[in-house]
């Protein structure tokens, strides 16, 4: 490329697209350390799985036997090879345990991804609301300042009284304090979102979504079924149960005897018939007899742990169901409230304000009702935003299968 043209293009500040939730989700899944930590656990489990089921190494050795110092020559010199052969499915049981541990680690990774996604979604919508709250707080503060001035003017024509001024001043100070609060919370909301996508330096910038985005319509039964099916917590508990079950199999296999095989070969220097006896060979084999140790304790312990893991998995399902119930109630009520504000309350409040304003602009009505109705409108908008905040938090939880931290 022509260098000058390149420089010219490079000099134009990139107009970054507004921050969009899907992009942030992808970024978080890629970067978040909690996910990397969980992924490392999966890698470790997979590596352990490779190791699991490996044979015991053979033993080779040298031997000297029948050494009789007074008879020369004497002694048998040779070597041996010894191998333990695990029997009774011990190796496949160990492989089963390792595989189930990989499965559990993968379930925990999925759960971790869900939690990260929940954080991103919840904090994104919280930020959308915080931005809107800030702009409403600015409007309210400006309105309160206008009311102070209007009250001063009303007192100057005898329509208002001094206590009205004090009331207006106090209200203006209150609105300034709330504006400062909204600014603080908005900054915190940006930092929380930055942490959720592992970018703590994330700077305030335009957002793609707005409070006008419609809340999704969720069916209770479908959502519960989906939550239980997709819940990372449930899957992790099931994974832990699978590990415990494989450990029971493994403990039972441990009882079965292993086979010991040993072969040896040597040269016997002892003479017979005037000649060295020469090469001789031997074989030994044996099995352990589960007489005193039948691993009863190990089996019973693993069985109990498996029962416990099954109960825990059931308890997790109950917890998720309970959390679902709360979140769905929050979703339904906040959505109904927000919908009522959006469809009925705010349009009426806005119309009341616009009617007052129009008549004031026609110079046939006074100004105070304009300010009062404008204040009502903003105050109701704040209530609407609070309802939206609750509703979106609940939707985020329901959409990430209750992966609430």
């Amino acid at each position, binding site marked *: 490329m022509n260098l000058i043209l390149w420089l010219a293009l490079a000099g134009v500040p990139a107009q970054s697209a507004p921050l969009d939730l899907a992009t942030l989700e992808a970024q978080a899944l890629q970067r978040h350390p909690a996910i990397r930590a969980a992924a490392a656990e999966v890698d470790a489990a997979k590596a352990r799985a490779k190791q699991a089921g490996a044979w015991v190494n053979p033993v080779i050795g040298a031997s000297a036997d029948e050494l009789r110092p007074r008879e020369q020559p004497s002694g048998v010199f040779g070597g041996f090879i010894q191998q333990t052969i695990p029997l009774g499915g011990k190796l496949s049981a160990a492989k089963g345990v390792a595989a189930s541990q990989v499965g559990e680690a993968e379930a925990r990774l999925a759960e971790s991804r869900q939690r990260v996604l929940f954080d991103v979604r919840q904090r994104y919508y919280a930020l959308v609301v915080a931005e809107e709250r800030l702009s409403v707080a600015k409007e309210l503060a400006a309105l309160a300042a206008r009311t102070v001035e209007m009250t001063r003017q009303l*007192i*100057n*024509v*005898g*329509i*208002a*009284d*001094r*206590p009205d001024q004090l009331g207006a001043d106090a209200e203006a100070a209150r609105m300034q304090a709330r504006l400062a609060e909204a600014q603080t919370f908005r900054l915190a909301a940006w930092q929380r979102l930055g942490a959720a996508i592992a970018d703590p330096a994330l700077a305030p910038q335009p957002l793609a979504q707005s409070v006008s985005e419609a809340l999704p319509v969720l069916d209770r039964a479908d959502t519960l079924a989906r939550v239980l099916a997709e819940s990372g917590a449930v899957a992790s508990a099931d994974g832990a149960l699978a590990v415990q079950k494989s450990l029971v199999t493994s403990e039972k296999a441990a009882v079965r005897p292993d086979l010991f095989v040993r072969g040896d070969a040597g040269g016997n220097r002892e003479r017979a018939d005037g000649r060295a006896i020469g090469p001789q060979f031997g074989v030994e084999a044996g099995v352990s007899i589960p007489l005193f140790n039948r691993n009863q304790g190990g089996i019973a312990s693993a069985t109990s742990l498996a029962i416990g893991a099954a109960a825990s998995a059931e308890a997790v399902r109950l917890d998720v169901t309970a959390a679902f119930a709360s979140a769905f109630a929050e979703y339904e009520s906040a959505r109904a409230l927000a919908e009522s504000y959006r469809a009925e309350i705010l349009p009426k409040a806005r119309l009341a304000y616009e009617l007052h304003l129009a008549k004031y602009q026609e110079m046939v009505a006074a100004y105070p009702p304009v300010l009062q109705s404008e204040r009502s409108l903003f105050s109701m908008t704040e209530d609407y935003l609070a309802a939206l905040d609750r509703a979106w938090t609940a939707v985020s939880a329901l959409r990430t299968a209750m992966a609430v931290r």
Partner: protein
Amino acid sequence: MSAVGVSAQKAAPARSSSAAAPPVGVVTPDVPHLPFTMDGGTKVFRLRAEPVRTEFVPGRVVDAWGFNGSVPGPTIEATEGDRVRIIMENRLPEVFAPHWHGLEVPVEMDGTPGISQPPIAPGESFTYEFTLRQNGTFFYHSHMAMQEMMGMIGFFIVHPAAAHQPAVDRDFGICLQEWMIHPNNTVPNTLAMEFNWLTMNGKAAPATTPIVVKRGERVRIRLINMGMDHHPIHLHGMQFVVTGTEAGRAAGPFGMRENTVLVGVAQARDIEFVASSPGDWMLHCHLPHHMMNQMASMVGPMMVDPGAPSAKVSGYPQDMWMPMDHLAGKKPELLGLPANWTGAMMGMMTLVRVVEPAMFDEIARLRAAGREARS
């Protein structure tokens, strides 16, 4: 300027016996007279429309609008046939024009903003000049409605060259006004339709200055009203006849005797009577709500003891007995009034004091000396 009124009072020791005698001057208690200078044969008056800080009763400060530092504006007194020039300066922050209510003047002198003249801009002046071809009780007022309610009105008395017969010994003017002022504010709310301050010549009772006459004198009281309410003005103890309206002297004989005259908005009523009965006689608007100052319900712990039998009487509390003699001060006109005389004196009220000559002279002496009445 009230010296003019005082001198007029002094100048009328006895009823004029001659039909050609000039009339006595008008006294407008608590409101000064407007002085004039002569330019050839023309009486030249100077008026300033301006904000005026006043007091309805001592301590009750009001930021009204008026003329030459007075609310109502100073009284113009002239004689039929006079050529008058009035130089009106607008010291208000907004446009304004004065109207000469009831006077027959050339239309370009009528003071109707936008019609007979452009309104006078802030800082500007307008000169009115006309010949007075009537006699009677007239007034001047801002022809901007809300400015009227800020107090912008004043008497414009035109005397006949010779007094109307039977001639009066004393002639007074009382301007009726109503106001709505929030308890912690000093500025009237001119948009209000209900009122909590009612004044005569810019004072609310008991701060109104009584009318003092000698027993047996013939007295005229000129009542004018420029506001939102009509006022039935009632005189105690004596009967009067109405001898004039906002259009001037009525045609006699004046047969119908009354003691209450309704002074409607924009009207003037001249009443005349012989002060035959010695005593301190109330003269007041009879609308109950106009006999109070800063009216408010007294429900609450200050008046009502919940345990007392009175608390169980339906309707209690209603009226309050609150003598406030200190609000009346110690003007000579109050000489000899009993203690606590102010207990029922509130709002649009004053006294017509019919006194013996010795008392009258003592009051006049105190006034002339600028002294206070003995307590």
